[in-house]
């Protein structure tokens, strides 16, 4: 008996920690194409900014694998799942047998076809090696074009700015972080970026990357016709699940690998979790790829428990993000930017802060906090637990909203107050 986990990021850790709560003995093998012990992917921006050194990027203590009895095979790629033999095939032909398999291979940057992608200085920004490569280039960089004003693009922009590099962000939508932020919150974030000196171009995109005779990117041409000089381009449009090899081996996948509420795929003894999975969506129903860190840990944990024989159900992924850019914190949860007749929106706008609560009937289904994010989780909890907020509606927008506004019985249950 042996469990094999493909992938070595947060979903893998969630699974390992859950399995070891139940079973201290069974062999666990982690196989990953990255050569590193598990590290915090979101920290690559702090690394690039020079604020976190490589030795502080470990997501778990250096003895994590040893303490948990995990064998690692790092720097190795899986080419195929041999279902009949219950084994996975590595790029060097070696096979590793599994009794249960977890696919936690994450995602890869989405790169739309455009001219010039093969030029030097055209980068993506999701892995340690991306950050190292960009870090090594920084002394030579004067102006970088970032394509995409989502979380990854904006964190890359902020980090490069901290290193003294001029940055221009080009975004197809009409504002930054358009998938999760409404116009009001988008403006607050955009203002912070622009005040810091970052140029944001919206409703436009890079049509072509232009290179010099040495094959290095030295400019971009935008769809609008505008041309910009630059010496590197960071493509940060989105992430797509690394589901290809699994699909070829017969695992059912749509955008991501489809999993049920136990993180099971269509194939016996094969599970999937994290950014590669298309799992149950808490608020909308159905399945959805939700590439966010907490979701990946929880999915990994649920997969791990079920692999180890403990029945645990996944309640569904809840979209949520927390980011701080140039000192402005922004938190979004659930249906933060959806307009629909059955939704009611409460907002409070102050100078440099914004709070929004989205209600469906008597429950909260979405929220945005910008500028002031204190105790935002109290609202996240209301969403997750589908608490009836009829009696606290008037207080939901208050900066000091808290347990004091809860019905006393619920407060007692949550806090154990007497």
């Amino acid at each position, binding site marked *: 008996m042996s469990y094999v986990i493909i992938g070595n990021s947060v979903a893998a850790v*969630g699974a390992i920690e859950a399995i070891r709560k139940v079973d201290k003995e069974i062999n666990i093998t982690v196989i990953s194409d990255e050569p590193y012990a598990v590290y*915090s992917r*979101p*920290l690559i921006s*702090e690394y690039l900014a020079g*604020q*976190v050194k490589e030795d*502080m990027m*470990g*997501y*778990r203590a250096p003895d994590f694998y040893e303490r948990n009895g995990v064998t690692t095979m790092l720097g190795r790629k899986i080419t195929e799942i041999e279902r009949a033999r219950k084994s996975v095939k590595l790029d060097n032909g070696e096979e590793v047998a599994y009794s249960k398999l977890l696919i936690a291979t994450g995602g890869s940057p989405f790169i739309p076809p455009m001219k010039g992608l093969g030029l030097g200085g055209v980068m993506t920004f999701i892995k340690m090696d991306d950050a190292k490569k960009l870090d090594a280039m920084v002394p030579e960089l004067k102006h970088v074009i970032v394509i995409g004003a989502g979380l990854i693009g904006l964190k890359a922009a902020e980090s490069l700015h901290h290193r003294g590099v001029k940055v221009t962000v080009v975004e197809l939508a009409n504002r930054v972080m358009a998938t999760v932020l409404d116009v009001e919150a988008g403006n607050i974030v955009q203002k912070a970026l622009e005040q810091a000196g970052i140029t944001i171009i919206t409703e436009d995109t890079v049509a072509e990357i232009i290179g010099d005779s040495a094959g290095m990117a030295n400019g971009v041409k935008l769809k609008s016709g505008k041309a910009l000089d630059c010496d590197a381009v960071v493509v940060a449009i989105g992430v797509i699940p690394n589901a290809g090899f699994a699909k070829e081996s017969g695992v059912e996948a749509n955008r991501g690998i489809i999993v049920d509420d136990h993180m099971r795929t269509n194939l016996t003894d094969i599970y999937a979790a994290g950014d590669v999975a298309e799992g149950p969506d808490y608020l909308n129903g159905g399945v959805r790829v939700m590439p966010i*860190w*907490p979701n990946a*840990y*929880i999915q990994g*944990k649920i997969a791990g428990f079920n692999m180890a024989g403990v029945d645990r159900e996944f309640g569904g992924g809840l979209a*949520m*993000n*927390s*980011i*701080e850019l140039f000192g402005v*914190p922004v*938190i979004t*949860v659930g249906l933060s930017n959806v307009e629909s007749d059955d939704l009611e929106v409460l907002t409070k706008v102050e100078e440099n802060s914004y709070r929004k609560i989205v209600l469906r009937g008597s429950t909260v289904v979405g929220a945005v906090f910008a500028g002031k*994010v*204190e*105790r*935002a*989780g*109290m609202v*996240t*909890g209301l969403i*997750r*637990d589908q608490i009836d907020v009829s009696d606290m509606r008037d207080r939901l927008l208050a900066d*000091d909203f*808290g*347990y*004091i*506004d809860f019905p006393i019985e619920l407060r007692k249950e*949550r*806090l*154990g*107050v*007497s």
Partner: protein
Amino acid sequence: MKRVYAKEEVCIGCRLCEVYCRTEHSKSKNIIKAHKKETPRPVARVLVEELRPVSFAVQCRHCDEPECVESCITGALTKDESGAVVYNVDKCVGCWTCVLVCPHGAPQRDLERRKIAKCDLCPDRETPACVDFCPNGALIYEER
């Protein structure tokens, strides 16, 4: 494990728990220096909520399956063998993901350090400072 529980019928909202929490988590451990001299000023890990006449103190519940630990992007938050949710301040980068997920609103933002502050159950003391110094016995530390 032992946790801190509030008794709201005897809490008068004096906020001394916050004062002694700040002091305990200061460099000097001196009440006056902690509040008037130290920079950055220590942040209280306990928060008094009040809507008169009701008040009570809230701090980390050290949950059995803590959302903050599962969501922390750096691994700064972990659950130790005793069950306490412990915090490695050096690993915190101020991303506020724990603020986003904690249903109790327990992690406080330390804006001077750009890191969070949360209850550590006062590891250097037998009983957490908030409990010891509450003049009304409105906080109790016990196993339930």
